[in-house]
């Protein structure tokens, strides 16, 4: 079944580890749409959160290949049902005096806050699940999106479980 899955990676914070992980994407033909790297809150480790497209066997192969990298300590699927996944977006929408209020009405429904006002644009910040962000983008697209930047996904398992256990 073709789907999108979020994978959490715990990696040794060694030089070159990001290159080792990302070079596997092209080498093994994995289809990635989001990658974030941050400190893992454990000394010497970083956390990578990756969203991959693919069927179950491709996801299984992805995890098994990742685990062969010496610097990768853990690699696990973070299923939607048992994890929380969020990202943040900054989005600049084309705007004039006629549609300004419409745009603000749309964005407030998604709890987006107005962070900057330009002569012909409005810039919003929003956070939420990847699908909430996708919906916001599609709602705003008719006004004309001038630019946007997404942070990529941050995801943690629900409850007490952690990648490091």
């Amino acid at each position, binding site marked *: 079944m073709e789907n999108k899955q979020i994978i959490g990676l715990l990696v040794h914070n060694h030089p*070159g580890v990001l*290159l*080792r992980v990302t*070079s596997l994407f092209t*080498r093994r033909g994995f289809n990635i749409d989001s990658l974030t790297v941050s400190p893992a809150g454990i000394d010497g480790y970083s956390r990578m959160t990756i969203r991959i497209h693919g069927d179950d*066997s491709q996801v*299984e*192969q992805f995890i*098994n*290949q990742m*685990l*062969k*990298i*010496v*610097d990768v300590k853990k690699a696990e699927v973070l299923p939607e049902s048992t994890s929380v996944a969020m990202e943040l977006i900054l989005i600049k929408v084309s705007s004039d005096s006629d549609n300004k209020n419409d745009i603000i009405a749309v964005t407030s429904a998604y709890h987006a806050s107005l962070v900057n006002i330009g002569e012909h644009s409005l810039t919003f910040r929003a956070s939420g699940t990847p699908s909430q962000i996708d919906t916001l983008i599609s709602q705003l697209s008719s006004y004309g999106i001038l630019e946007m930047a997404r942070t990529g996904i941050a995801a943690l398992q629900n409850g007490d479980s952690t990648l490091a256990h």
Partner: protein
Amino acid sequence: MQLNGSEIIAECLLEQGVDTVFGYPGGAVLNIYDALYKYSDRITHILSAHEQGAAHAADGYARTTGKCGVVIATSGPGATNLVTGIATAYMDSIPMVAITGNVSNDLLARDSFQEVDICGITMPVTKHNFIVKDVKDLANVIRKAFRIAMSGRKGPVLIDIPKDVTGAVCEYIPETPKAICSELLSAQEDFEAAAKAINEAKRPMIYMGGGVVSADAESQLLALAEKIDCPVATSIMGLGGFPSSHRLFIGTIGMHGGYETGKATDNCDVIITAGARFSDRVAGDREKFGKEATIIQLDIDKAEINKNVKINYSLLGDLKDTLSKLTETVSPAKHDEWTTQVAEWAKHSGVTETPSSENYAHPYHIIEAVNKLTNDDDIIVTDVGQHQMWVSQKYRFEKPRKWCTSGGLGTMGYGLGAAVGSAVANPGKRVVLFTGDGSFHMNLNELATVRSYDLPIVVVVLNNTVLGMVRQWQKLFYGRRFSQTDPHRKTDFAALAEAFGVKGMRINNDSDAEEVLKEAFASTEPVVIDCRISPDENVLPMIPPGKTVDDMITEME
């Protein structure tokens, strides 16, 4: 004790039991070579003609001993010349530690003379690599590198060391390497489930690969095959992992495997795969491979499960352990009807041999004649191409680690370097290199090494004057448009050998062969035999790429 980085390298090699290294000196490794001079009573260094030859030699050394091969090269071009050798080892899971010098820390990242980012370059073809910027980290990195190379699925590891690190002094504390323990990763239930499928099988077959040799698990595989009375086919890499003379051995599987292995694969109801990876040269059509069969895969690398072919049961761990445990769990069986059927297929080879001629020898004839003159402990090495396939079809391997061939990467030019490494690793044993004129032209410079060290290598050049394997594909799939496969070279390999100080001989046809070969094998002197074969010789049978045994080609013009 206080030692400099280069002495630490030498001490760490000794810790790991290394007594032989291959390599080539240069500016960035001057300190290391100075230490090798000092340690020359305990570490033998074999000097190649080119770094690629040294890398293939370390590979041949590893394949024939089971130990980790070690190669040393300087920065820049020295390091890049290793890359093909490292990639060859990586594709065939051969343990190797490659040590490269680099420019000093203060010159790194400035495009200094002979500087190259060899860690970046080798990342996709090593299990792991390191750059050591501080001498204090050096000993532990070397220990880790050997551990990574030799544990799990084996493979090459590269250590890049800036020149100042090799000269810097720090405290060295000797350490004894800890034994590498393998853990059995599959549970008892997994073995029981797989055993149940095997017990219910009427037509089982084993498909084994290089993993059986790498794990030294040949006796465990033999025990399983005999207990369940099951035909055994092997990939090219697995040759020697099961005795060719055994009644259950049915030969190689895949593109140039026999008709019987192809038929057995299509008709069996269970395939037990041990240490093999369903490459495209074995499973041409991934969807149809073993289409009737339940597939059980035993491997040490979890990422091999379901990579190319859908697996029903997987058993993970060292093959010695998984094969023994599976053998304990299955019930003894007899499959007379099935083994008789497979033997029937074997009679139908379908291949007609080309008639003998005055002007050419027949490759099978040469290989069989060499087979008679060698014993089970002699080592057979090949390059890549038609000759490699003919040897894999005809030579009868009885023991593991007597066979070096570039199975995964298919590296033309691999053979002579690997033959050097095999000969150095196995004093007193004969090494035969079968090569083609195309492959031999690539790295024949190592004849200089063969002479320098007086290695007992017989080089048999199956010389058809064309690039035969590519030419065969042009015949089959490109309307006989022989683009760049007839180089019109006039090289006289016998005369060339003499120029290197190596004896040169010639075989012109089948009736010459025995006498010339007998003379070549009578002494331990290195010799090159230029053996003329027809440019129209083909490797048959052949399953075209992406196809099955039903599409097997047994005849060409």
